[in-house]
């Protein structure tokens, strides 16, 4: 069942992504990218990444759409017509895509419990994190403690984005 | 004073003079006094070095590593001594001349002129005294760059164009070819220190030697081997003292001096001879000698004719080096001094004519010898030296080159020397003839009567003309140095 859900949701994501590419009404694009994020969240739940799903849910439902709308209040809603298919783009995409496909050929298969990533580094998190760190949610242990430094960087990134938006867009005090 | 301190002093004296020159910018007399004084001191220092060398002392001075394993290093040896003597000796003379010329010509920015002049001399001293190829290259480039403001002194579009040619060719060849050769040498030999007998010997053989040698010779653009000679005529837009000292002495001589250094201390005559790596240079230098002479013949502008003459004469040095016979190498070394004295005299004279009569074209100069007897007399002496006739220094150097060529059966070289002598005669003698015996043409545009050039200038050109003759009469010093170059006792 999980597998079926996985297949269909991925299929829907592809449809949504292509629609984003196709549609010219930016409003519709914004809505579809919201739906895309919803599907992403569902997929993450399916793949056991609940924390990621949670984040995607909060971001997708709470911030991303609103931000997009906030932008659309300030810019035109329609994309200009008459953009021919870009040959360079197609070439780049074809090259990158085939490289990636080629790369998948030697990958461990989906869900393979023998994949290298399940046997190095990660096992310790599963085995010892309760004793070493405490929280039953291993993701939290890894996020906040083992790789807490990454998270410090992440916080700084969001801090940077906020003051960056201020620097670019905020108005100062009105001169009397 | 220790020898190495003396050497440092030789390098620093001109530089130290720059500050006072700039400070004294508002007081021309003081400024030029400083220049002259520094020049006089420099001569003293260099003579002191000469006596050290004569005592068998080889002063060495390490400035410390510039790149790991590569030091900036000064070391005195006979050829460098010779070049240093020439450059240092002619500096104050040129300043003397410049005092008359610059004031007489009402040039602007004279302070800048004297300052860069001093730096250029410092760079020339650096080239003369450098103890390895890296140091030499460094000073070589410094010389190029600090003479650029002198070349473009006038600031006119024409001067700027000339400046671009000057810089383009000199930087282009030095970075594009010479640096490549130097780094290749470093990669092959693991050292760049000049050593008698060469440092590449045993490290490299076959056609690579020829290629490397070609990179060096063409890369040393200051030697003005065709086709990299265009900068020299272009640089003639500079004020005459610059043309005189730099493009008859410091810059061009730095070029041929470097070629000689490379021939002797990087490759070594034996290595070049074994691999027949310099044979092409005989042809190339020969071609340059003849071709430049022919071009000179066609030039009516006196400075241009002198410039092409310089190109031609420089290749004598190259030819001397290329023959690879000890005698001809000696001749090449002597020619550095001989040509310097002769050509500076010629330039001084040309400048003097320009200042006094505002004439630049040879065809206008008929009868000028009667108005400016001293100037044109000196010019005649210089011209004789160029042709290689006694009693001038040019004869001595040509003699050695020719005997070297005969000794090693280089008939091409013999033919070239002979032919060029004829050509030299063909383009110099008519000038002298018309100056003294020609009738002044339509003088309508020069209604004012003129006499000699300003006294300091005349004084200066007389001194150099005298030097040309002295070098013929008493060549011992120069011969001694040139001999030492080849390991013979001075």
């Amino acid at each position: 069942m999980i597998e079926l859900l996985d297949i269909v949701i991925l299929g829907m994501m592809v449809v949504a992504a292509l629609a984003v590419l196709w549609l010219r009404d930016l409003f519709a694009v914004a809505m579809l990218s919201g739906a895309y994020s919803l599907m992403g969240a569902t997929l993450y739940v399916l793949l056991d990444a609940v924390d990621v799903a949670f984040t995607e849910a909060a971001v997708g439902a709470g911030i991303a759409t609103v931000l997009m709308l906030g932008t659309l209040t300030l810019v035109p809603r329609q994309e200009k017509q008459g953009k021919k298919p870009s040959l360079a783009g197609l070439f780049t995409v074809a090259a990158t895509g085939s490289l990636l496909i080629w790369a998948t050929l030697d990958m461990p298969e989906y869900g393979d419990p023998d994949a290298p990533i399940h046997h190095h580094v990660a096992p310790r998190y599963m085995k010892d994190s309760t004793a070493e760190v405490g929280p039953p949610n291993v993701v939290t242990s890894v996020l906040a403690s083992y790789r807490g430094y990454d998270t410090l960087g992440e916080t700084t990134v969001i801090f940077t984005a906020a003051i960056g938006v201020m620097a670019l867009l905020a108005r100062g005090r009105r001169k009397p | 004073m220790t020898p190495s301190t003396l050497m440092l002093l030789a390098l620093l004296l001109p530089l130290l003079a720059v500050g006072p020159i700039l400070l004294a910018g508002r007081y021309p007399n003081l400024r030029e006094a400083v220049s002259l004084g520094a020049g006089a001191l420099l001569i003293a220092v260099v003579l002191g070095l000469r006596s050290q060398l004569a005592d068998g002392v080889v002063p060495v001075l390490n400035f410390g590593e510039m790149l790991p394993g590569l030091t900036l290093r000064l070391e005195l040896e006979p050829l460098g001594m010779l070049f240093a003597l020439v450059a240092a000796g002619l500096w104050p003379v040129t300043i003397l001349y410049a005092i008359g010329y610059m004031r007489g010509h009402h040039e602007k920015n004279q302070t800048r002129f004297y300052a860069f002049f001093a730096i250029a001399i410092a760079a020339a001293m650096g080239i003369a005294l450098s103890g390895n190829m890296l140091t030499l290259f460094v000073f070589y480039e410094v010389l190029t760059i600090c003479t650029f403001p002198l070349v473009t002194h006038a600031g006119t579009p024409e001067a700027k164009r000339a400046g671009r040619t000057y810089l383009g060719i000199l930087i282009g060849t030095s970075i594009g070819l010479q640096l490549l050769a130097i780094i290749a040498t470093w990669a092959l030999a693991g050292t760049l220190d000049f050593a008698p007998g060469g440092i590449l010997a045993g490290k490299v053989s076959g056609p690579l030697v020829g290629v490397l040698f070609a990179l060096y010779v063409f890369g040393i653009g200051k030697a003005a081997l065709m086709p990299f000679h265009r900068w020299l005529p272009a640089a003639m837009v500079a004020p005459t003292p610059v043309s005189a000292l730099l493009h008859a002495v410091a810059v061009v001589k730095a070029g041929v001096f470097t070629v000689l250094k490379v021939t002797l201390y990087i490759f070594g005559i034996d290595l070049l001879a074994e691999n027949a790596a310099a044979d092409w240079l005989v042809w190339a230098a020969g071609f340059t000698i003849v071709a430049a002479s022919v071009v000179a013949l066609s030039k009516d502008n006196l400075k241009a004719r002198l410039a092409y003459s310089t190109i031609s004469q420089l290749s004598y040095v190259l030819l001397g080096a290329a023959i690879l016979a000890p005698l001809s190498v000696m001749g090449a070394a002597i020619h550095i001094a001989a040509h310097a004295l002769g050509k500076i005299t010629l330039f001084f004279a040309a400048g003097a004519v320009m200042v006094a009569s505002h004439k630049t074209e040879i065809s206008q100069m008929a009868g000028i010898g009667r108005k400016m007897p001293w100037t044109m007399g000196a010019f005649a002496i210089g011209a004789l030296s160029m042709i290689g006739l006694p009693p001038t220094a040019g004869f001595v150097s040509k003699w050695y080159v020719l005997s070297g060529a005969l000794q090693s059966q280089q008939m091409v070289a013999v033919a070239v020397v002979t032919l060029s002598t004829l050509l030299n005669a063909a383009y110099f003698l008519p000038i002298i003839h018309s100056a003294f015996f020609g009738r002044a043409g339509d003088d309508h545009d020069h209604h004012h009567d003129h006499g000699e050039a300003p006294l300091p200038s005349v004084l200066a050109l007389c001194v150099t003309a005298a030097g040309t003759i002295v070098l013929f009469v008493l060549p011992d010093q120069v011969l001694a140095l040139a001999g030492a170059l080849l390991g013979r006792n001075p």
Partner: protein
Amino acid sequence: MSAPLEHLPALAVVVPLMTAPVIVALRRPWAAWLLACGVSWASLFFSVLLLLQVLESGPFSYLMGGWAAPWGIEYRVDQLDAFVLAIVSAIASVVSVYSRKSVEAEIDSERHYLFYAMFVLCLCGLLGMAITGDAFNLFVFLEISSLSTYVLVGMGRDRRALTASLRYLILGTVGATFYVIGIGLAYMMTGTLNMADLAQRLPAMAHTSTVRAALAFLVVGIGLKMAAFPLHAWLPNAYTHAPSAAAALLAGTATKVSVYVFLRIVLGVFGATGLLTALPITQVLMVLALAAMFVCSAVAIWQPDLKRALAYSSVAQIGYILLGIAFLSETGLAAGIVHLFNHAVMKSALFLALGAVALRVGSTRIDAIRGIGRKMPLTMAAVLVAGLSLIGVPLTVGFVSKWYLVEAALTGGMWPVAVLILASSLLAVAYVWRIVEAAWMAPPGPELAHIREAPTAMVLSTWVLAGASVWFGLDATQTMGVARLAAQTLLQGVAP
């Protein structure tokens, strides 16, 4: 190792990181500037201490959070890291002193604190990238520096700064995402993100297409960030329209750190796989580097705006560095690494000088600065010195780099490449001399009548860098020594 020194690696990055919020909270322009200056100099101090420590006792590591290496995040400091740290913080220190006047002129006072916060964050990101030993942590710091860079660029006065910034944002994000893909693929086959651990585990997987594709993605991704030749589209506009102080900082550091990342990932992590030679990576790199050197130098000659000309020159200079790397020899690598330093010094000096010109004249177009040499002699003399260095004239740092590059080419038996390296410097002569001629060889026009020399602090900081480009050209033993050590350390892990 004494106790406080032990924490140097963490402090070097965390001190700027913590300063940024303090700046935002304080908001006073002068306090912001003071803090930015202070923190830049503090990280310079830390970096130099780190460098000395590494030179004395060899590479060492610092475990964040006390977790052992492949599980936690490790800071691994070797000669290369410490060298890059020193470069970045040195440039930032000089630029921070310089920035006060320039920022006052170019950015309205209410936004000053944001500029300095961004400045400090950018520094923090770059330092973090240079010091970390974890491939994913590198991405995080890459983004910190990138985001702050986008903002810094976007704060330029000209409206084209905005488009430049957005273009940089898009290409930069694509690059970073490629990097993430590459790291992901490598992680997939090894299960680790720690660079040292990756380097150890990758060789066993080197035959797989996944690892090969990972390498390709990493090369392209990092190539985008460092503006390697065909991927440099974002750079010229970004550097041209950014505020002067930002442009100087970025020109000196941003692409350099990306090059460092390239070295660290491609050579350090993938070196032992033997893929560098098995795949035509070095050859492609060499061709592209040569193309960059010629094409971008040639383009630089025709630019009417000097900042833009210098930006193109930067792309060309990245070509030199990549060429050095492509030789895959000790000398070549050392040449590339030392050119990191050398180019940072001289290009920052040039951008600082142009910033001073922009401050006084209001433009950096070549026809606007004719005869400026008479009016701002000190500034333009710095341009001359740094420009000569760009050409590679002896006694300047540019010469040192070129020397070793050519030596590497010759010892590698690649004569034509050596010739090309030197030939390309002639193009540099052309674009540098154009500036020198315009500045010095023409009488100043009437519109320059009231121009004065730049403020002392600006002149001084410009000359610190211009002077450094002479000082380290006169004595390159220090820089070259470190670079050679770094190259040796790097090459230890590279399979023949």
